[in-house]
């Protein structure tokens, strides 16, 4: 799916297996939004499996308004130098030059993200042209499969970023799970129609129907603010969790970050979740998604 290069002695870089494979190494882990090298170090120290480098966390993007773009390359390089875990960074939907810049900066993963202002309201980035892997958001199975067809190596449910309201993340994960379950019960002739309705290639739909899961890792994002939120997503079958504003917009980022990491590993043990949830201080303030006017809902960006 991605652009491969051979170095002449048989070894190949940029292969689909190495790019989908990195997502497998992140499973069971927490990926945290950070806006400075100092925050990146706090995230690594708390046990994050990767950090997402960006200029403003979604809650601030929401508060400030205006066009949100890729971060300053200096900031991204500073974060890459600060930590030993993988560094991801966001490009605008359809902004293939921001993606080229991020690849040049040697980020480990690019998030083609609805949290930033879209650069193209019709097309997503042709991710198959890149050696660096991409993660993309999805609200349903059709969207996930279209992103995988374009070359995404990892999917995250979108949720509603910057709200601290986990209900949209729940809705998107339940939708994807239910649509996969429905495919597994279909006969082959029904899958042709399903592929048409999902607006995804038949072979990919057939593969999902027979495997009962996406061919890539599925994380959850958008609105996760507490250890219990993270554990609920894992119990729902997520492979891991992105936490955006939830950590550094809270009262005690160090403690909350470590607590969410622990709750993600011991997601099925209420005793651990209760223990790590004690005395964390203020969670991020939060916005109810139902109170957000439709133009301010980020999950509706992407097609």
């Amino acid at each position: 799916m991605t652009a491969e290069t051979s170095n002449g002695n048989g070894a190949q870089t940029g292969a689909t297996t190495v790019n989908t494979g990195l997502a497998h190494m992140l499973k069971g882990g927490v990926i945290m939004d950070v806006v400075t090298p100092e925050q990146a170090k706090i995230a690594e120290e708390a046990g994050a499996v990767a950090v997402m480098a960006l200029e403003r966390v979604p809650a601030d993007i929401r508060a400030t308004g205006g066009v949100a773009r890729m971060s300053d390359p200096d900031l991204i390089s500073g974060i890459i130098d600060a930590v030993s875990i993988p560094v991801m960074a966001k490009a605008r939907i359809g902004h293939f030059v921001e993606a080229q810049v991020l690849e040049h900066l040697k980020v480990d993963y690019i998030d083609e993200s609805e949290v930033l202002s879209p650069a193209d309201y019709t097309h997503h980035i042709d991710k198959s042209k890149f050696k660096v892997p991409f993660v993309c958001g999805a609200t349903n199975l059709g969207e996930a499969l279209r992103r995988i067809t374009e070359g995404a190596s990892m999917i995250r449910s979108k949720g509603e970023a910057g709200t601290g309201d986990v209900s949209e993340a729940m809705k998107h994960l339940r939708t994807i799970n239910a649509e996969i379950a429905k495919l597994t019960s279909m006969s082959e002739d029904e899958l042709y129609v399903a592929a048409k309705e999902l607006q995804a290639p038949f072979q990919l739909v057939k593969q999902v129907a027979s495997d009962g899961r996406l061919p890539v890792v599925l994380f959850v994002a958008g609105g996760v603010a507490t250890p219990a939120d993270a554990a609920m997503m894992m119990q729902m079958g997520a492979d891991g969790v992105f936490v955006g504003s939830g950590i550094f917009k809270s009262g005690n980022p160090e403690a909350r970050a470590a607590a969410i990491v622990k709750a993600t590993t011991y997601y099925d043990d209420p005793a651990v979740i209760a223990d790590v949830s004690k005395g964390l201080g203020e969670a991020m303030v939060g916005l109810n998604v139902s109170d957000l006017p439709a133009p301010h809902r980020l999950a509706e960006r992407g097609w």
Partner: protein
Amino acid sequence: MVSGTPQIGVLALQGAVAEHARALQAAGAEVRTVRRPEELEGLQGLVVPGGESTAIARLAAPVGLMPAIAQRHGEGMALFGTCAGLILMASRVSDAEALEGFDRIGGLDVVVRRNAYGSQLDSFTDQLDVQGLNDPLPAVFIRAPIVEQILHPEVEVLAEAQGSPVAVRQGRMLAASFHPELTGDHRLHQLFTEMAGQ
């Protein structure tokens, strides 16, 4: 010792757990996941999977899993580490800043360097000649560590890539820089399952 199907655990704090479990089952082992020291009881082998070694070490610390694994290994439990697992089993890590203050398993007499090949853009796949296997083994290297130095003559190099050891064995320890669990070729898991059963 015990006959019949070997019981093998997969350390399941974070990382590619399900892939190892599937490969071990295909190799004929009975598999369970391990997140607490008491779950090591009765295991003849344990896989320490790939993931982020910094995250795994931090998750292991509050429950004392790393010393517990080292102790069980001392009592005969075989170990198989891949990628992050190799880092956690190595007796020395040359760029250990992010792991400082946290227990590792140790015991494998090599020096490793984390992310030795570079960023994800430098991750690669290759076909390796492995000692004891007839045909080349497909190998996936992801932000892989490198074995910089071997500290004991007991450490046997099973495979090399780009001039460095990438698969080693010492006593009842097997370790690889790459990810045999990400391919359909389960011969290393087969080898480990046999090691654990002996």
